Each structure stands twice: as C-alpha cells, then as structure tokens.
C-alpha cells in the first residue's frame, strides 16, 4: 500500500461515518449537502436544515474528534516505538495514561465540570511523564532502560493515587463517572474544544513527522545516531515531549482509548515500511480512519452507545494477533 492512498481511505471512512446513525443518510445526501453549502446544488430549505443539523451539529464533531484522537495516539505510538527501539511500546510507556487517569478522576471528584476534568487530565498526564523522566535521571543521565523503568514507576504511582481517589469518590455518582471515563467516550466532545485541541495535535503530528529522519538514525542506537551527526538527547527528549503533549491532549478529550497507539503503527509499518518520515504520517492517517470506523461501530452496533475504548480493544486484539503472525520474522 502506498502513503498516497491513505488520505482517500480516510475520506471514504469519513463519508461512511457521516452517513450511518439512527437516521441513516445516503452518501448522495452528504455530497448534495456539500454541494448546497458551496452553492452548486439547490436543496429545499427544510431538507438543508435537517442535513445541516445531522451532519454538522451531531456527527461531524464526533468524526473530527475520533480522527484527531486516532491520529495523535497512532503517531505518538509510532514515535515512542522509534525512540525506545521497541515495536511493543505504546503511548502509555512513560506513564502518561496513568497520570491522565488520575487527573481526570481528581477533576470528577472536585468539580465534575467537563472542561476542568479535561484540563486536569491533560496536566497530570504531563506531570506523570515528567516524574518518570525525573526518576530516570535521578542517578546520572538516563538510558533507555532507566527511562522505561522510570515510566513504569511513575505509572504505578499515579495508578495507586487513582485508586485512592476512587476510594474517596461517591460510589453512586462520581465512581461510575470515573469508570466510564476510563473506558473512553467521544460523546462529550464539542466543536469548541476541538478548535482548541486540533491545532496543537496537528502541529505536534507534523513536528513528529519532521523528526522522522532523526528517528530513523536514533532507532539504530545512540552511538550510531551520534556518528551520523544527530543530536541524540535533544531529539529524544524533543520527540518524547511532543508525543506526550499530543497523546495527553487526546486522552484529555476522550478518556482512555487503548490499543490504537500500539496496533496502528504496526499495521502501518507492515503496509509502508519502517521509514519514519513516511510511517508517522501513515500512522496518523490510518489511526484517524481506524478510530472513526471504531466510533461508528460504537455508536451503531447497539441501541445504546458502547464505550469506544471497549470497541478499540475488541477490534484491536484480533488485528494484533494477525499482525503478530506477519511480524514475527521481522522481530526475530
């Protein structure tokens, strides 16, 4: 598969996602609506309003949110895999998920206001990675192993802090909110929040793509990257900071959505190869398509909505098992 095909895949998935729902639309309805917006087609006003309401007000924010979050989780997952030279690494490696989970729970406990929860989750995600990196550097300059261990320690620290918050939370009201947040949901995301988060996510993914060639060198080993003229520490921490920012933002928007950041980079690598300057945009596009599709499933498979984190796990695991078969040789 070529990188140039992926935008078309994304477009097709977006079209399908905009047409499925409680009130199904034909793709021609969506194209007709687009035409009417551009003044090319005449639609009856009440039909136009109905379509506008369905497409722009209800479905588009979710599709955009799913796309942005899928792109950010996948691109940051691919970046972390390159930095840690390990294809089994996911965006949570340095404790960002543990921190964000704790931050969200704290927000639910003290305020319950959605924006506060998001900000708290975002900030604690960053704090957790900071703590992990700090622990790694506690006894001299961090190596790959101490970074991973630092991230594990920090993740465990925030996981236990999360348990404490859960224990303190009101079991009838706050505790279910925390549990649901952990499962991930795109239901509460609105266009205004997207406008805030989208530029940061897009710039972050773009910056990671620009670092692609340096990441290729880095995945050969520190000494070799140095001998090729790459500033190793600056690249490593720059990429970690960017990927953390981007994944933390996406977690704060929609809670924990697992497996995307691990599985999608694999699939992308099998499809277009390991070169990061191509792999990172490919992961972003594929991740966006995957999460939009997963969200369509989450919205439509039953009358009530299924948490999207559950869907990505259910979809991600069989994909990962298939990938495992094909990737076995490459890892050996």
């Amino acid at each position, binding site marked *: 598969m070529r990188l140039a095909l992926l935008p078309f895949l994304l477009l097709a998935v977006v079209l399908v996602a905009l047409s499925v729902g409680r009130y199904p639309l034909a793709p021609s309805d969506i194209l007709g609506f687009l035409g009417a917006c551009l003044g090319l087609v005449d639609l009856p006003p009440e039909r136009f309003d109905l379509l506008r309401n369905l497409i722009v007000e209800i479905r588009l924010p979710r599709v955009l949110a799913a796309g942005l979050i899928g792109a950010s989780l996948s691109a940051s997952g691919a970046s972390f895999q*390159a930095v840690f*030279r*390990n*294809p089994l690494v996911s965006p949570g490696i340095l404790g960002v998920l543990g921190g964000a989970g704790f931050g969200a729970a704290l927000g639910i406990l003290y305020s319950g206001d959605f924006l506060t929860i998001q900000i708290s989750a975002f900030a604690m995600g960053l704090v957790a990675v900071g703590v992990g990196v700090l622990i790694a550097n506690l006894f001299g300059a961090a190596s790959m192993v101490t970074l991973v261990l630092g991230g594990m320690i920090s993740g465990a620290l925030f996981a236990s802090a999360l348990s404490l918050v859960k224990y303190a939370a009101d079991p009838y009201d706050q505790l279910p909110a925390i549990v649901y947040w952990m499962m991930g949901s795109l239901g509460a995301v609105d266009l205004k929040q997207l406008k805030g988060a989208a530029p940061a996510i897009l710039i972050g993914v773009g910056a990671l793509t*620009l*670092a692609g*060639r*340096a990441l*290729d*060198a880095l*995945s*050969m*080993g520190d*000494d*070799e990257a*140095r*001998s*090729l*003229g*790459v*500033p190793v520490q600056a690249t490593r921490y720059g990429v970690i900071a960017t990927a953390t920012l981007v994944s933390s933002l996406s977690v704060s928007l929609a809670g924990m959505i697992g497996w995307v950041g691990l599985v999608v980079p694999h699939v992308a*690598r099998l499809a277009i*190869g*390991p*070169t990061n*300057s191509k792999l990172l945009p490919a992961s972003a596009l594929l991740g966006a398509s995957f999460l939009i599709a997963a969200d369509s499933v989450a919205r439509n498979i039953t009358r009530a909505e299924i948490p999207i984190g559950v869907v990505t796990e259910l979809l991600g695991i069989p994909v990962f098992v298939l990938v495992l078969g094909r990737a076995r*040789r*490459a*890892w*050996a």
Partner: protein
Amino acid sequence: MREPSPRPRLEGLDLHFSRGKRSVLEGVTLGFGAGEILALLGANGAGKSTLFRLLLGFLSAKRGEVRLDGAPLSSFSRREIARRVAYVPQGHVTPFPYTVREVVMLGRLPETGLLRAPRAQDREIVEGIIARLGIERLIDRPYTEISGGERQLTLIARALAQGARLLVMDEPATGLDYGYQLRLMRHLSDLCAEGHGVLVSTHHPEHAMQIATRIAILHEGRIEADGPPQAVVTAERMRRLYGVAVEVFDDPFGARRLAPVVGRATSEADR
C-alpha cells in the same frame, strides 16, 4: 560550515579515562590519517572500545585531548564530525526491518541535514556505493534478514555514504565467515589506496599484518607499541598480549606470518 581538510587526521593526545575507580586508559596517544590503515590490537577489556568512543567524541576524556584535522574535536559540531569521520559498528540487528538501501541512505544525513529529504543525487551515491561493495542484490532486502557479513558490508556502505575520509571500525571481522573476512580486508585495502584513513580494531593479528600499514598494541590502558607491522608483531609481544605462544616467521613472499603453537609445544613455550 568548515570544509573538510584535504589531509584529514584524527588523533588522541595523552588520553586518560577511568570508569569509577578503575582506570581504563592511562595516557594513550594514537593518531591516524588519510592513506593509512592502523590496526589496533589488544586483548578483551584492554580499552579498545573506550579509546574509540573517545576518538569519536561519544565520551570525553578525563585528561588529554582529541584533535581532528589539527583542531580540538570539541570545536566541531556533530554534523561537522560526521562529514569527516564515520563510525562502523559491529553488524548488529535493528528492531525495525529497514531495507539495506534505507540503512545506507542514513549515511547521507550529515550531508542533507535532518530535515531535507534525500534527492536523486543522494540516491545515486547510495546505489553506487552499494554496487561497489558488491551487495546490490540485497538492496531492497530487510537489513534484519541478511547475514552478519552482509550487515557488516551494509554498515561500511553507510559509512562511505557519509563521504567521510576517516573510518573507525570496531572489530569488523567478528562473526564473519572466511570469505567475508577476506572480502572485508580487500575492501579496506582498496579504500586506503583511494585515500581513506582507516582505524580498525581486530582480534586477528593475521588480518592486521595482511592489510595494516601500521599496527598499534593497546595493553593495560597504554599503547605498548606503535609502528610498522614487521616491527610490532613479535612472538614475545603476542605471548605477553594474549598469554599464548605463537610462532612468528616471514613467508617466501616477504610477508610476516603467525602460526599458533599447539599441543606439547604450547606448554613448553608457555613455561
């Protein structure tokens, strides 16, 4: 950016290095330049790798100085160093299945910088070097699936793609079969004849004597000998260095040869 010198030279002057309390290098002075193959012999743990890491600027010396083209190494940026000195590590396995072409293309990084994509010209250079090393049939194979000898040649190709005139090679013959060892030595001789300078560490004194223009011996953190192969490699030195007995003689073609002394003779010589 400074242009590389026409007579490149890399040297360490009075280098001291210690790890914790254990002293690894105690005043090592060693240099090499264009048109030379300097082979560095030393037992395991003699400090060869540490010396290489100092010369490449991956570590800094406790005392002493590394000079590149006559100026302190620390006055060069990483990228400037990379355009003058290339490092050839032992053929290792990468976690991701880059193709041979992609691995060699990384050698163009110091030239293109981190942000510019490779151009047609870079691609031609890479393909030319791959063909020159005789591995063009591997060009689109994953680096993770080729043999150790093929990986070593790929890494040499990457070093050449850097355009650096000085090569630092860490035990390149380790793990190679007989054919690849000989092929490797021929490539090194050719590179030297073209004006490259090569510093190569090896566990094979025989290899060193075949191709080196100079041999240095690193023993217990010091340079014990540094000079033409004939003068440096003696039976007495080999015995002290490796703790085993060897016979040293000149063959009818005028080349110096080593032959191990095994069986009863060993125990006698060891005594």
